[in-house]
């Protein structure tokens, strides 16, 4: 009997009291937009395309972000300049489908696609949520400042000949018989 009263009555009363005491606790609500929230650099918000330290587009149109995307909201087409550099002819993200999962950023081998702390992306017209490369491309390196994919890759591009990438020997002279 006592146990029943303890379980049913006392416990309920204690619960009520404890909840009531929350009235005197500080509220957790942040009154956005009057108070701007503190965002962290690893927050997964608006997606951008960054540039390498030399100011060139980082994206090499490898399509890995597109294939990693679980909602298939990235579409792009590879193009190549006269000197062999790959870049996206178009790069489109349908933000009305994007779930900000960040898989694209993880998949990107060149640190081109990055998620930023900007989360204010609402639009009145859904069509405005389709962003093209011109909208996505920023004038900086984003979160990763020093990486330049083509300095590591073996492919020859304008301004970087064969053998000039990191850890590369000069091109082989096939006609030489020296060891």
């Amino acid at each position, binding site marked *: 009997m006592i146990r029943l009263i303890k379980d049913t009555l006392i416990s309920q009363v204690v619960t009520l009291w404890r909840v009531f005491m929350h009235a005197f606790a500080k509220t957790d609500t942040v009154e956005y937009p009057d108070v701007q929230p503190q965002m962290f650099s690893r927050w997964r918000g608006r997606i951008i395309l960054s540039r390498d330290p030399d100011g060139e587009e980082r994206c*090499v*149109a*490898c*399509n*890995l972000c*597109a*294939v990693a*995307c679980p*909602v*298939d*909201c*990235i*579409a*792009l*087409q*590879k193009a*190549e300049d006269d000197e062999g550099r*790959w870049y996206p002819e*178009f790069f*489109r*993200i*349908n933000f*009305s*489908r994007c779930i900000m999962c960040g898989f694209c950023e993880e998949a990107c*081998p*060149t640190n081109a696609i990055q998620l930023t702390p900007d989360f204010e992306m609402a639009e009145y017209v*859904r*069509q405005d*949520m*389709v962003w*093209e490369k011109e909208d996505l491309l920023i004038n900086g390196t984003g979160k990763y400042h020093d990486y330049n*994919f083509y300095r*590591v*890759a*073996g*492919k*020859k591009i304008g301004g970087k000949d*064969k*053998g000039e*990438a990191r*850890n*590369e*020997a*000069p*091109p*082989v002279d*096939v*006609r*030489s*018989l020296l*060891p």
Partner: protein
Amino acid sequence: MAKITVDGIVYEVNPQNNLLQECLSHGLDLPYFCWHPCMGSVGACRQCAVKQYRNADDKTGVVVMSCMTPASDGAIISIADAQAVKMRSNVIESLMISHPHDCPVCEEGGECHLQDMTQMSGHNYRRYDFKKVTHRNQNLGPFINHEMNRCIACYRCVRYYDDYAGGKDLAALGSHHHVYFGRHEEGTLENEFSGNLVEVCPTGVFTDKTFSEHYTRKWDLQTAPSVCTGCGAGCNTTPGERYGTLRRIVNRYHHDLNGYFLCDRGRFGYGYNSSDRRITEASLVSTHDDEKGVRKSLTTQEAQRQFDAMTAGDVVGIGSPRTSLENNLALRARVGVKNFYAGFSAEQQRCVQAVIAINREQGLHCPDIRTLEQADCVLVVNEDITNTSPRFALALRQAVRNRASQLATDARIPLWQDAAVRELAQNELSPLFILSPQGTRLDDVATDTFLGTTAQQIALLAAVANIIDASVGNAATDTHGEEGARRIASALITARHPCIVSGISAGSEALIHATANVARALRKYSVQSDAIDVCFAMPESNTMGLALLMEEGGGTLDDALQRLARGEADAAIVLENDLTLRTTPEAIDAALSRTPAVVVIDQLHNEFNARAQLLLPSTSFAEQNGTLVNYEGRAQSSHQVFQADAALRPGYEWLTPVDPLSLVLTTSETILYHSAQTLSVLSGAEKLLPPRTGIQALMKSPRQSHRYSGRTAMNANLNVHEKKQPADRESAMSFSMEGLPLQKDASLLSAAWAPAWNSNQAISKFQDEINGELKQGCKGVHLLQRTLEPHVAARVSSSADNSVVYFIDHIFGSEELSAASPAITARSVGAYLCVGEADAQRLGLQQHGRAEISSGAHTAQLPVLIRQRIAPGAIGIYCGGEINRHAFANGVSISAVAEDSNVLVRSRQMFSELVISDSQQGRG
């Protein structure tokens, strides 16, 4: 059958094979690089290491290369053994030492054998701190990209290009870790099968340049099983589409036909699909007085209405040998059998009919390409097979190696020991005889090439037949012929598996009969007591199909044009046919001048359809379903890869009248099914259609891979609300990722993929054994049955065809549609005249100079190519889409044109692109 034990499990194997091949046959994952199912083993890459034990008590074992070890009975091996695993991971690590950090910018990425094998072998991080070896690339022409840094030195490229395809201009250069695979100098790869390097190379050294221009990863391509339209061989292909344009064509394994390889025309000749010559909208020549002759575009509905109005009366329908059976059947149904005419030139139709009769004859056999490879003596008659039906030529290059196989078998060397077999055989080749008016690209492996005009060839064939069986042939007329005929005859008689290959490009019925007579004569000596192999290459993808259809009634092209010229028809419908390639300009002019309305349905703009009143755009092979019949009479389904622009419709859709009362929608399937029931020549063709019962009938197969990307973004720039995927009511495939997965069923296999096997090597997962047939694969339906009694051959007079003019074909440029592809255009040349040195002197012609040829009212000025190897007195003309063949078919007169240094330079440039074998004198 032998038994081997792999990791404790017993497998039944063929002891003739090596362990690697047998492991792969049984679906085990074992990494490899240098081994190729078609090229055997050389043991170069050391990647396929396994542990082999002497007996059940042996717990130590030794590491062996599975590709170099026979699958002998009782062998006990382990793939999972720690030492073997360690060895494989160390090997891949050393192979990867200089491999660049290129995958994101590499066209091979995502379908790369090296990626797959690296994953499989378990190599993750590079430990090697020293510098990577780098190489400079070469420009290898319009087809192939070269990125030598990516090479892992497996030697597959040179083994394929030099040893398998007979190329001369790709070699392993340099030494030790500086080894370089390329040409001696920068320049176009000359071999006609260079495109296969893309698929043979396990990494990204050789990639498809045309594909790179509009590159898409493999997983993003929408694909469907298709059939090549480049010639009549019927090779199976997989075209891939993305964003509404055709992106590339790769090989699709067919056990009997193309196997693992395609020719460059088939692989790179797809560009016309999105070329600016493509007809993109219906158009009508206005008849109003104020704007007479102006071509105005029409909507689809207007065009259909106009079409119905124009063809309401007495209509002549002209079919096409380069479009599907369904389109021809639809035309036939629309105009009626009496008004249906073949789209062949007259002599071509006679030739095809002769070939069909031979294909129906008992005692003869039409070999598929795989059977060609097994022939141990081949006679090629007149046809320049490398340029008309190129895949045959690659097969014949394998056929001449049967001598090596024979020697190896005698010496008890397994055939997969590639290097050993080649070492043993040295230059020993099976006999290959070529009769041709000019030197051919196969001369380097030919026992002898007899240069002669058609008449001389007929005489020689008659002599050969006479020697083999005097009741069939007639005696040779000259001593040279006598000697040659005896050599050919004795080689054919002694062969266990002789084969005769010809074609109809000469347009000479007499030559076909003479060729068949040799085969008929050979029956007497047939060692295998089987039928004698004789086949005739067909110039276009459905030449055979249309010819079969004409057996069910219908007239010739000449009948049609004469009827039109008499003004006996109100309208003419020309289906996908450029009539200027079929007959003389006079005949066309006469016909068109009396025809009130000409309607042309076609894919590309050309001179002929510019004269049509109503021009209707039709879909290409990749945009419609169709059935094509190859040179054997094998009907094969080519599936629609993607939905074309709404203005473009398949021929059968334009042609089938819209009947509002009809509840049954007319689809390619219903046309074929109905025709297979009603037309005896097509009986059995319904077996091409997918099953109508069971789970497969209910579930479609996806055209897109399970990793297809960008679905919600690719059209979002037009409208953010995604459209429903187009429904396919015509075939067993869907335009989406949904449906019955293809992973274990090859019946509708387009792009091979298996877990851990992203490259084209995944095909082994779909074969019942390596190099075997595809599981549940449809190999097509043979429409020709051997029903005719063995024929007693009529003697063919050598004077039956005494024309000295012959027409030259080129792999790049001779086929009408592929010639409009940019990559093919880059490799093709314009029209030219070809004569021998003696004739050139007599006529006063200069190498690369100009000559005027005239025949009747027709004249043309052509650059001159003086060849060493050409039949004396013969005159070769290459039309190159510039001049009308039929205008000059009946002999020409030639005169030199005054020199102009400008012209000389231009033609010299043009001829520098031309790949011919002129210095090869045969191997004698």
